[in-house]
């Protein structure tokens, strides 16, 4: 048994159950970010809630059999199919906290006969994961350099634009707005900690009983299961794509939180599995016409048989079955595809590598991994999308950072929306240093630069300066929001901005559609995507999600979304449908004194609310007030880095660290 040798049947059952619980919890958290709505607390005292309806009757649920999210994982884990409905029902009908503890205990208790051998494997695997995580961290050391660069850029920007953004004492004016925006969705760290620890009490208490190696192994196996995609084609399934589903990633993120495993470890696991799987696939290809050894036979058989074959043919570690033949090939493959891993070999040693490869091995040969990398990892850059939608003249992805072609299993796309120069599409995002494959979208630079410059010019005009000196802008904004009279001076000014702004808004809508098409086409690979954008860039993202909502049923593609200073009305837009397209966190970051956005957006639209300056009262949207960082709309150029850092996107629960 290959992967199976890592865990006993009972442990696999427990792992599958935990995955199911996390999957369902992740879906709940999408509309109730903290998993604790008013309705849930009394649930404890009102037991019938836990048996409300059975899962089998609600195909909307992620744990439902037609979602194609849970069953393939259970199948991969070789859990007896008779136990599936019990697991689905357990996951779907009762609050996760009732069961998580019990399943964790089951996971820690069970010990098979071969326990020493297994714990050796576990140890080797966890060491390999640690080493990979470490090397990935070292890799991002260069991010310090990026940060430097970013700081430089920030200075540059500030110098350029600060004249316009006279930041007088708005504190008093702020008072008017603050209470209004203080909805329950706004994150205050205190509240969160209270809630989270309350909810997580049980898991945390039990989690200490599980040793670290076991936890890593469980995550490794579950991740392999997500990727292996042992979906049964016969069963009807609403999930369309093969590959790494965004909802799975969110689930694993929650699971890692429950197990108290750092997300960087999970990323290391992702990279290891991906790299080994690719290496296996490459080794297979390159061997095509070569010598007909018996070992090749074994190899092919093992590969073809996939998961079940692995169990039948292999006795133990990968090294054993391939007789050492495959190992160099894999090492070479790893070296070529993932330099990070290539250097790893000496670190983790042969046993560690064998453990890693064995665990990953079962994924090898599955189409899913290939599918996950899209056009053979060619990715987004160089794709000529430009002329697909008539009006959009420019639409190009620019690779950022050094994580390309390294088997990263998640993509991040940054979209600027207020730019003065072509480099403004890339530079605001340079300070980021996560382990994702990062791209910046450059779109409609001509229009965007035009509108940005026009706004900036107006801001620096004497009229605006005068208004600002009088401290009038803050009152202007609050009056905009209450849809009262506009100062006459503003009318003249905005008429001038209006026409180019309208064009830019129109283009952003079209670019959004284009982006949706790109995602749907699988060009970035069927990998979970994180979308982050500010200003009109945020609008692109919103429109993209809206477009996805027309054809997609659920959040297969998009894992996380951050909208910064978004020019999107709150009313009259289908926020709920858009929210549904995102599997994980959905952040609306707004600045209550971004009056420029308010002006550009015009009063008639402001009666409908404006996402960039107000919280949105939609379940599952995380509203974050970043007024203290954003002095004016152009602040987004340089402050995004800080905001994103504060958002801590890699944590499962919404956290907003305010600098006190």
């Amino acid at each position, binding site marked *: 048994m290959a992967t199976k040798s890592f865990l006993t049947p009972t442990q696999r059952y427990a792992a599958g159950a935990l995955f199911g619980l996390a999957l369902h919890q992740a879906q709940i958290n999408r509309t109730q970010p903290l998993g604790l709505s008013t309705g849930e607390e009394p649930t404890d005292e009102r037991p019938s809630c836990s048996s409300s309806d059975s899962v089998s009757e609600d195909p909307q649920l992620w744990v439902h059999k037609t979602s194609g999210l849970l069953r393939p994982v259970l199948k991969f884990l070789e859990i*007896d199919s008779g136990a599936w409905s019990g697991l689905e029902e357990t996951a779907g009908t009762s609050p996760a906290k009732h069961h998580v503890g019990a399943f964790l205990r*089951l996971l820690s208790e069970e010990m098979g006969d071969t326990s020493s051998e297994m714990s050796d494997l576990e140890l080797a695997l966890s060491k390999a994961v640690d080493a990979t995580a470490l090397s990935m961290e070292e890799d991002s050391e260069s991010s310090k350099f990026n940060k430097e660069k970013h700081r430089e850029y920030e200075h540059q920007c500030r110098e350029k634009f600060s004249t316009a953004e006279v930041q007088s004492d708005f504190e008093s004016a702020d008072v008017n707005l603050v209470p209004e925006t203080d909805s329950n969705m706004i994150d205050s760290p205190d509240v969160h900690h209270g809630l989270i620890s309350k909810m997580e009490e049980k898991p945390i208490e039990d989690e200490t009983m599980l040793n670290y190696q076991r936890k890593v192994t469980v995550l490794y196996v579950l991740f392999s299961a997500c990727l292996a995609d042992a979906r049964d084609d016969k069963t009807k399934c609403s999930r369309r794509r093969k590959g790494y589903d965004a909802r799975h990633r969110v689930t694993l993120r929650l699971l890692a939180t429950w197990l108290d495993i750092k997300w960087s470890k999970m990323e290391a696991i992702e990279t290891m599995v991906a790299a080994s799987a690719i290496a296996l696939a490459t080794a297979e290809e390159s061997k095509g016409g070569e010598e007909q050894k018996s070992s090749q036979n074994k190899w092919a058989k093992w590969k073809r048989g996939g998961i079940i074959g692995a169990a039948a043919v292999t006795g133990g570690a990968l090294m054993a079955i391939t007789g050492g033949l495959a190992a160099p090939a894999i090492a070479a493959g790893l070296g070529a595809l993932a330099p990070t891993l290539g250097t790893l070999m000496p670190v983790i040693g042969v046993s560690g590598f064998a453990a890693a490869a064995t665990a990953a091995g079962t994924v090898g040969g599955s189409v899913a991994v290939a599918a996950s990398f899209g056009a053979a990892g060619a990715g987004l850059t160089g794709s000529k999308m430009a002329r697909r939608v008539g009006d959009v003249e420019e639409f190009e992805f620019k690779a950022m950072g050094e994580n390309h072609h390294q088997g990263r299993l998640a993509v991040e796309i940054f979209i600027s929306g207020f730019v003065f120069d072509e480099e403004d599409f890339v530079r605001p995002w340079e300070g980021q240093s996560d382990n994702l494959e990062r791209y910046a979208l450059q779109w409609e630079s001509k229009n965007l630069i035009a509108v940005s410059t026009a706004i900036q010019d107006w801001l620096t005009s004497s009229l605006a300066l005068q208004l600002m000196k009088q401290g009038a802008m803050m009152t202007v904004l609050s009056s905009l929001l209450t849809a009262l009279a506009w100062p006459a001076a503003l009318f003249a000014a905005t008429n001038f901005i209006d026409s180019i702004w309208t064009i830019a808004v129109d283009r952003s809508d079209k670019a959004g559609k284009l982006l949706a098409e790109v995602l749907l086409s699988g060009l970035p690979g069927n990998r979970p995507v994180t979308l982050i954008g500010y200003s009109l860039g945020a609008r692109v993202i919103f429109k993209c999600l809206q477009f996805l909502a027309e054809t997609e049923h659920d959040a297969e593609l998009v894992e996380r979304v951050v909208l910064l200073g978004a020019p999107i009305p*709150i009313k009259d837009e289908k926020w709920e449908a858009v929210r549904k397209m995102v599997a994980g966190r959905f952040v609306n970051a707004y600045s209550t004194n971004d009056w420029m956005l308010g002006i550009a957006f015009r009063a008639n639209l402001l009666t409908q609310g404006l996402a960039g300056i107000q919280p949105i009262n939609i379940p599952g949207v995380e509203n974050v007030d970043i007024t203290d960082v954003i002095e004016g709309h152009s602040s987004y150029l340089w402050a995004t880095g800080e905001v994103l850092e504060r958002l801590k996107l890699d944590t499962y629960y919404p956290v907003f660290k305010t600098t006190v």
Partner: protein
Amino acid sequence: MDSSSNQPEFDYLFKLLMIGDSGVGKSSLLLSFTSETFEDLSPTIGVDFKVKYVNVGGKKLKLAIWDTAGQERFRTLTSSYYRGAQGIIMVYDVTRRDTFTNLSQVWAKEIDLYSTNQDCIKMLVGNKLDKESNRAVTKKEGINFARDYGCLFIECSAKTRVNVQQCFEELVLKILDTPSLLAEGSKGMKTNIFKERPPQTDASTSSCC
């Protein structure tokens, strides 16, 4: 969105739980009740779940029945399933005395410990009545235990389907007779996690528009 439209209507939803030692025939009993068949089953892994719609006492009922694994290693799991059950079926094998004694020594204690429902109806079921010749627990003993513990009692056979329907029916009738349990199982208490909204704060946002 409205997924409830295509579901069969029912007046009450009851959650039932089956417990007892490994191999006493819990799963067989459930299978016999829900699909009227009998076959050799492998030991249950973790928990199994089945739904059965029945008409009892002029009411349409939906029974959500949880069948737990009897094996020792899954014992830790079952504890969380007692929560919210309106009926608990304790099963023993009339041909194996230890499964009967374990009910009082192990399982009854588990119920007291984990059940969240003061009034929940318990039912003692002696299974494998078809193996009368090998009987190791007399009917009298069963009746006595049931009287002492304050629960219903029946002997049945999953294989011959003797008393299987009656077993569930009696339990459900008793639940229907208990007003507090009835209130819990009524449809009004159903919640849909996705239709619930977080605490409303419209005052905050609407005031500014």
